[in-house]
Protein backbone atom coordinates (compact mmCIF):
# COMPACT_ATOMS: atom_id res chain seq x y z
CA UNK A 1 0.00 0.00 0.00
CA UNK A 2 1.39 3.38 -0.96
CA UNK A 3 0.80 6.50 1.06
CA UNK A 4 0.45 10.18 0.29
CA UNK A 5 1.96 11.96 3.29
CA UNK A 6 1.08 15.62 3.73
CA UNK A 7 3.17 18.05 5.77
CA UNK A 8 1.73 21.44 6.57
CA UNK A 9 4.23 22.88 9.06
CA UNK A 10 7.53 24.53 8.38
CA UNK A 11 10.39 22.12 9.17
CA UNK A 12 12.05 24.96 11.08
CA UNK A 13 9.06 25.32 13.40
CA UNK A 14 8.74 21.72 14.51
CA UNK A 15 9.90 18.23 13.68
CA UNK A 16 6.81 17.02 11.82
CA UNK A 17 8.51 17.10 8.43
CA UNK A 18 11.55 15.21 9.68
CA UNK A 19 9.29 12.69 11.40
CA UNK A 20 7.33 12.29 8.17
CA UNK A 21 10.51 11.64 6.17
CA UNK A 22 11.56 9.11 8.82
CA UNK A 23 8.38 7.12 8.23
CA UNK A 24 8.00 6.98 4.47
CA UNK A 25 8.56 3.73 2.62
CA UNK A 26 9.67 3.23 -0.95
CA UNK A 27 6.97 4.24 -3.41
CA UNK A 28 5.29 6.75 -1.11
CA UNK A 29 4.83 10.43 -1.88
CA UNK A 30 5.15 13.51 0.31
CA UNK A 31 3.16 16.63 -0.50
CA UNK A 32 4.19 19.88 1.19
CA UNK A 33 1.29 22.23 1.76
CA UNK A 34 0.74 25.46 3.73
CA UNK A 35 3.88 26.31 5.71
CA UNK A 36 5.27 22.91 4.80
CA UNK A 37 6.34 24.31 1.43
CA UNK A 38 9.26 26.03 3.16
CA UNK A 39 10.77 22.55 3.29
CA UNK A 40 11.01 22.55 -0.49
CA UNK A 41 13.57 25.33 -0.69
CA UNK A 42 17.21 24.84 -1.59
CA UNK A 43 20.08 25.83 0.70
CA UNK A 44 18.34 25.36 4.02
CA UNK A 45 19.39 23.05 6.87
CA UNK A 46 16.53 20.78 5.77
CA UNK A 47 17.38 20.60 2.08
CA UNK A 48 19.80 17.69 2.30
CA UNK A 49 17.36 15.51 4.25
CA UNK A 50 14.59 16.22 1.74
CA UNK A 51 16.83 15.75 -1.31
CA UNK A 52 18.13 12.46 0.07
CA UNK A 53 14.64 10.99 0.01
CA UNK A 54 13.95 12.01 -3.57
CA UNK A 55 13.95 8.94 -5.77
CA UNK A 56 12.89 6.56 -3.04
CA UNK A 57 9.74 8.62 -2.74
CA UNK A 58 8.19 11.36 -4.87
CA UNK A 59 8.13 14.84 -3.37
CA UNK A 60 5.59 17.50 -4.29
CA UNK A 61 4.82 21.05 -3.20
CA UNK A 62 1.51 22.84 -3.55
CA UNK A 63 1.56 25.64 -6.11
CA UNK A 64 -0.73 28.09 -4.34
CA UNK A 65 1.18 27.82 -1.07
CA UNK A 66 4.55 28.35 -2.80
CA UNK A 67 3.25 31.41 -4.64
CA UNK A 68 1.67 32.86 -1.50
CA UNK A 69 5.03 32.67 0.22
CA UNK A 70 6.97 34.09 -2.71
CA UNK A 71 8.93 30.90 -3.32
CA UNK A 72 9.96 30.76 -6.98
CA UNK A 73 10.29 27.50 -8.85
CA UNK A 74 13.99 28.05 -9.29
CA UNK A 75 14.43 28.13 -5.51
CA UNK A 76 13.18 24.59 -5.12
CA UNK A 77 15.23 21.49 -4.42
CA UNK A 78 15.81 19.65 -7.67
CA UNK A 79 13.28 16.96 -8.40
CA UNK A 80 10.44 18.43 -6.38
CA UNK A 81 7.32 18.67 -8.52
CA UNK A 82 4.73 21.39 -8.21
CA UNK A 83 1.01 20.54 -8.19
CA UNK A 84 -2.12 22.65 -7.87
CA UNK A 85 -5.25 21.66 -5.90
CA UNK A 86 -6.46 19.56 -8.81
CA UNK A 87 -3.10 17.78 -8.75
CA UNK A 88 -3.45 17.34 -4.99
CA UNK A 89 -6.77 15.60 -5.56
CA UNK A 90 -5.20 13.38 -8.21
CA UNK A 91 -2.41 12.40 -5.84
CA UNK A 92 -4.90 11.62 -3.09
CA UNK A 93 -6.78 9.37 -5.49
CA UNK A 94 -3.64 7.73 -6.88
CA UNK A 95 -2.09 6.75 -3.54
CA UNK A 96 -3.90 4.14 -1.43
CA UNK A 97 -3.75 5.99 1.86
CA UNK A 98 -3.38 9.54 3.19
CA UNK A 99 -1.36 10.34 6.33
CA UNK A 100 -1.23 13.93 7.58
CA UNK A 101 1.84 14.98 9.61
CA UNK A 102 0.36 17.82 11.62
Amino acid sequence: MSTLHTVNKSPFANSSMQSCLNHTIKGDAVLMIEDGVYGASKNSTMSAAVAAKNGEIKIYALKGDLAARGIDEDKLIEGIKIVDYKGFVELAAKYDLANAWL
Partner: protein
Amino acid sequence: MSEAKRFLYVNRKAPYGTIYALESLEVVLIGAAFEQDVSLAFLDDGVFQLTKGQDTKEIGVKNFSPTFRALGDYDVTKFYVEKESLEERGLSADDLQEIVYEDEDDDWAEKPSIRIVDRVEMAKIMANQDVVLNF
Protein backbone atom coordinates in the same frame (compact mmCIF):
# COMPACT_ATOMS: atom_id res chain seq x y z
CA MET B 1 -21.72 -5.11 6.89
CA SER B 2 -18.64 -5.57 4.74
CA GLU B 3 -15.19 -6.53 6.00
CA ALA B 4 -13.78 -4.51 8.88
CA LYS B 5 -11.36 -1.76 7.86
CA ARG B 6 -7.98 -1.31 9.50
CA PHE B 7 -8.13 2.03 11.34
CA LEU B 8 -4.95 3.57 12.71
CA TYR B 9 -5.14 6.43 15.19
CA VAL B 10 -1.87 8.39 15.02
CA ASN B 11 -0.92 10.18 18.25
CA ARG B 12 2.09 12.48 18.05
CA LYS B 13 1.31 15.13 20.64
CA ALA B 14 1.81 15.33 24.38
CA PRO B 15 -1.18 15.33 26.72
CA TYR B 16 -2.61 18.39 28.52
CA GLY B 17 -0.71 21.17 26.70
CA THR B 18 -3.23 20.72 23.89
CA ILE B 19 -6.53 18.84 23.61
CA TYR B 20 -5.55 16.54 20.76
CA ALA B 21 -4.64 13.58 22.97
CA LEU B 22 -7.93 13.67 24.86
CA GLU B 23 -10.14 14.22 21.83
CA SER B 24 -8.30 11.47 19.95
CA LEU B 25 -9.09 9.08 22.80
CA GLU B 26 -12.75 10.14 22.65
CA VAL B 27 -12.86 9.06 19.00
CA VAL B 28 -11.31 5.70 19.92
CA LEU B 29 -14.01 5.11 22.55
CA ILE B 30 -16.87 5.92 20.18
CA GLY B 31 -15.16 4.10 17.34
CA ALA B 32 -15.00 0.87 19.33
CA ALA B 33 -18.72 0.37 18.74
CA PHE B 34 -18.12 0.07 15.01
CA GLU B 35 -16.16 -3.19 15.29
CA GLN B 36 -13.35 -2.21 12.94
CA ASP B 37 -9.76 -3.41 13.23
CA VAL B 38 -8.31 -0.66 15.43
CA SER B 39 -4.67 0.12 16.19
CA LEU B 40 -3.20 3.08 18.03
CA ALA B 41 0.21 4.51 17.16
CA PHE B 42 2.19 6.59 19.63
CA LEU B 43 5.24 8.35 18.26
CA ASP B 44 7.10 11.63 18.68
CA ASP B 45 5.55 13.44 21.67
CA GLY B 46 2.58 11.05 21.53
CA VAL B 47 4.55 8.60 23.68
CA PHE B 48 4.13 11.02 26.59
CA GLN B 49 0.40 10.21 26.63
CA LEU B 50 1.13 6.77 28.07
CA THR B 51 3.47 7.63 30.95
CA LYS B 52 2.69 6.55 34.51
CA GLY B 53 1.95 8.83 37.42
CA GLN B 54 0.02 11.63 35.77
CA ASP B 55 -1.48 13.85 38.48
CA THR B 56 -3.48 16.75 37.10
CA LYS B 57 -5.01 18.11 40.31
CA GLU B 58 -3.07 21.33 40.41
CA ILE B 59 -3.62 22.28 36.78
CA GLY B 60 -7.33 21.57 37.17
CA VAL B 61 -7.85 19.38 34.12
CA LYS B 62 -9.19 15.86 33.95
CA ASN B 63 -6.59 13.10 34.12
CA PHE B 64 -7.66 10.89 31.26
CA SER B 65 -4.71 8.48 31.37
CA PRO B 66 -6.67 5.75 33.23
CA THR B 67 -8.99 5.55 30.22
CA PHE B 68 -6.24 3.86 28.19
CA ARG B 69 -6.42 0.92 30.62
CA ALA B 70 -10.12 0.45 29.85
CA LEU B 71 -9.60 0.11 26.10
CA GLY B 72 -8.89 -3.62 26.36
CA ASP B 73 -12.55 -4.14 27.26
CA TYR B 74 -13.48 -2.36 24.02
CA ASP B 75 -11.33 -4.71 21.94
CA VAL B 76 -8.71 -2.01 21.37
CA THR B 77 -5.60 -4.00 22.16
CA LYS B 78 -2.91 -2.81 19.75
CA PHE B 79 -0.93 0.12 21.12
CA TYR B 80 2.18 0.58 18.98
CA VAL B 81 4.73 2.74 20.77
CA GLU B 82 7.83 3.88 18.90
CA LYS B 83 11.15 2.92 20.46
CA GLU B 84 13.16 5.83 19.02
CA SER B 85 10.55 8.34 20.20
CA LEU B 86 10.84 6.95 23.73
CA GLU B 87 14.65 6.99 23.70
CA GLU B 88 14.84 10.54 22.30
CA ARG B 89 12.73 11.61 25.29
CA GLY B 90 14.73 9.70 27.87
CA LEU B 91 11.98 7.16 28.39
CA SER B 92 11.82 3.41 28.46
CA ALA B 93 9.00 0.86 28.65
CA ASP B 94 9.23 1.11 32.45
CA ASP B 95 8.00 4.69 32.33
CA LEU B 96 4.78 3.69 30.65
CA GLN B 97 1.66 2.59 32.44
CA GLU B 98 0.69 -1.05 32.32
CA ILE B 99 -2.08 -1.61 29.83
CA VAL B 100 -3.42 -5.11 29.35
CA TYR B 101 -6.24 -6.96 27.64
CA GLU B 102 -7.74 -10.39 28.16
CA ASP B 103 -7.22 -12.65 25.17
CA GLU B 104 -10.46 -14.56 24.64
CA ASP B 105 -8.65 -16.90 22.23
CA ASP B 106 -6.18 -17.88 24.93
CA ASP B 107 -8.36 -18.70 27.93
CA TRP B 108 -8.68 -14.99 28.80
CA ALA B 109 -4.97 -14.75 29.56
CA GLU B 110 -3.86 -11.23 30.37
CA LYS B 111 -1.53 -9.80 27.73
CA PRO B 112 0.16 -6.44 27.26
CA SER B 113 -1.52 -4.05 24.83
CA ILE B 114 1.64 -1.95 24.46
CA ARG B 115 3.95 -3.20 21.72
CA ILE B 116 7.21 -1.31 21.42
CA VAL B 117 8.26 -1.11 17.78
CA ASP B 118 11.16 0.57 16.05
CA ARG B 119 10.80 3.31 13.47
CA VAL B 120 11.10 0.97 10.49
CA GLU B 121 8.40 -1.25 11.91
CA MET B 122 6.20 1.76 12.69
CA ALA B 123 6.48 2.91 9.07
CA LYS B 124 5.30 -0.52 7.92
CA ILE B 125 2.42 -0.49 10.40
CA MET B 126 1.34 2.93 9.14
CA ALA B 127 1.49 1.73 5.55
CA ASN B 128 -0.72 -1.28 6.20
CA GLN B 129 -3.95 0.47 7.08
CA ASP B 130 -7.18 1.35 5.33
CA VAL B 131 -7.82 4.59 7.21
CA VAL B 132 -5.38 6.81 9.10
CA LEU B 133 -6.76 9.35 11.57
CA ASN B 134 -4.33 12.10 12.54
CA PHE B 135 -4.76 14.25 15.62
